[in-house]
């Protein structure tokens, strides 16, 4: 059993078959390592990722020793520039995986992502098969610039795909899929899950399909639609509700663009009550799109107004009482879900 102090490396535990227990962050490292071994066109770029240092979160520790400096490139602190360079490499058929040191810094690369990379294929069939790994989310007392969840900006942008895994198995399988996809993919990995979450991960290099949500917990009475770290808060709330006889279905979106519309509509039509939960700001967030979709296409099945829980419309605050007030958690989800169930 790993201690959690070695940054996820050797955090595996053999179970005798092809599936082991890995931390969420070790699953990310494993996906990168296996895909680099499999495909010589895959390379890594980012700030501080090379050498023994191996990145701010040590996801790529040891990678330069195995793959060489040619494939593990430390960049100057210039997100706009190095994402643009990744786009050029991708146009030439390479598959760069860019580590954004924190998702909060992705705004510095915004033009390169939304203006150039996202539009190139529509405009002139320039395929841009890169991935940006964006360590996102808070709850870990990191303040306004190391806690953000900026996925809605990119879900709003034509030409991008957006992924947000919530489990170690999905972290691996969806990262493999993101790297193999011929389009620019933003992969939001959840910092609070890095070393706090362990789960079974297949040892093979099987990609999971992008755009497919998963029913993590089937239920009858209401649906929680969520993704990322909030999945685990929703599951905790669902367990508590179950003790009171309220049976919650929990849908993990896993991919935010393209959104799995059939899965969202299926759970809405099944339970007739929908609570959308995400850590990102509620206002104009992904949950608004989910709620609108349900209202437009599952209205006649609804037994209550669609509810949303999300971050408040404020910068992510630092101090614990403030951040806790800002952010959804199992307790708040429990309360909102209970009210919805009793509606």
């Amino acid at each position, binding site marked *: 059993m790993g201690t959690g102090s070695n940054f996820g490396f050797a955090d595996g535990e053999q179970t005798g078959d092809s599936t082991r227990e890995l931390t969420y962050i070790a699953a990310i490292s494993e996906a990168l390592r296996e895909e680099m071994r499999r495909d010589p066109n895959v390379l890594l770029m980012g700030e501080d990722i090379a050498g023994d240092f191996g990145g701010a979160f040590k996801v790529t520790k040891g990678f330069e020793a195995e793959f060489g400096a040619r494939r593990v490139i430390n960049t100057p602190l210039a997100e706009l520039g190095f994402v643009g360079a990744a786009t050029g490499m991708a146009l030439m058929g390479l598959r760069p995986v860019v580590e954004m040191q924190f998702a909060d810094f992705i705004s510095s690369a915004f033009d*390169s992502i939304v203006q150039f990379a996202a539009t190139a294929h529509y405009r002139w069939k320039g395929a841009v098969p890169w991935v940006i790994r964006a360590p996102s989310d808070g709850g870990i007392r990191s303040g306004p610039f190391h806690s953000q969840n900026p996925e809605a900006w990119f879900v709003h942008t034509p030409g991008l795909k957006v992924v947000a895994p919530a489990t170690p198995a999905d972290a691996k399988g969806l990262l493999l899929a993101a790297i193999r996809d011929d389009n620019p993919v933003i992969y939001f990995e959840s910092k609070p899950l890095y070393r706090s979450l362990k789960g079974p991960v297949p040892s093979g290099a099987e990609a999971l399909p992008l755009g497919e949500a998963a029913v993590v917990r089937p239920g009858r009475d209401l649906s929680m639609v969520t993704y990322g770290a909030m999945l685990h808060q929703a599951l905790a709330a669902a367990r508590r509700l179950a003790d009171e006889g309220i049976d919650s279905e929990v849908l993990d979106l896993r991919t935010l663009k393209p959104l799995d519309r059939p899965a969202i509509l299926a759970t809405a039509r099944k339970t007739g009550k929908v609570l959308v939960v995400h850590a990102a700001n509620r206002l104009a967030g992904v949950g608004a799109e989910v709620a609108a979709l349900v209202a437009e296409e599952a209205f006649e099945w609804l037994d209550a107004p669609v509810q949303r829980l999300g971050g408040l419309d404020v910068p992510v605050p630092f101090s614990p009482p403030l951040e806790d007030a800002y952010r959804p958690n199992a307790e708040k989800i429990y309360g909102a879900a209970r009210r919805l169930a009793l509606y």
Partner: protein
Amino acid sequence: MLTNEQRLTLYYWMLLTRSFDETMVAMWKQGRGLGGTFSQRGHEAISVGAAYALEPGDVIAPMHRDLGAYLLRGMTAERIFGNLLGRSGGVSAGRDANLHGMGDLGLQIIGFISHLPHSMAVSLGAAMSFVYRSEARVALTFTGDGASSAGLFHETLNMAAVWNAPWVVIVENNLYAYSTPLEQQMKVPAIAERAASYGMAGVSVDGNEVEAVYAVTSAAVERARCGGGPTLIEARTMRMLGHAIHDGAEYVPRSLLESWEKRDPVMTYRARLLEAGVSDEAVLSEIAERVAAEVAEAVARAEADLLPDPATVEAGVYAEG
């Protein structure tokens, strides 16, 4: 140095660019255009001279004043007029406007976006893909004096130098960023000087002299190809018409335009070819007739081409597979 045949080839591409441009400007004034467009007048020696310095496998990322580079690299006048007119046979099949979006990886051309310095970073990435694969190829891009104030211009120069990339950027300094003259844009007298602060080679060239542009670019490209690192080339010229077709450029002193008109890159090169005995009136007139016919045919075909089917509006946002 250049053979006489090569000199006539340079002249042909410059004249084709000029003829295309004059026809385009006339069409837009006649109301036969679509949206806006950008004149090339004054920039022909830069786009042609620089693009002529590349090998077929090299990558080029031109901007909106580099029509000559697109043509020289094999993009047909018909496809470009089709792009200008929003036709289905245009380079972007009606997706992108005027000279934007004219990428074609089959021709090793990367299309630009309005945010001009992005072609610098993207072409730098192309150059780094050549390093990655140990290929002796070079990436060449173009930008302007206006773009040289943007952060990405500086980020890219720095990265190109740090990575010793096989990459060349031509900064077309045409003295105005839309209406803003150079002295309101920067304190340094020459954009080429900026290269030194990043540890890369920088050189200025007369952008109205096609052979000079070719020579400087050739030297930079070959140095880059041999592992000698990147170069910033500042090519000085004058934008002879407005920023875009709608712009009368009343803010430019007429005397400035008159002085540059005497240095017109196409006409001065024609006179030089005659003076030096490279060619004669009969040959140059034959080239002019050939160019006029090519442009006329391209326009006729593009105008006859269909507009895109609105049912395809959502097609192509994503690469399949």
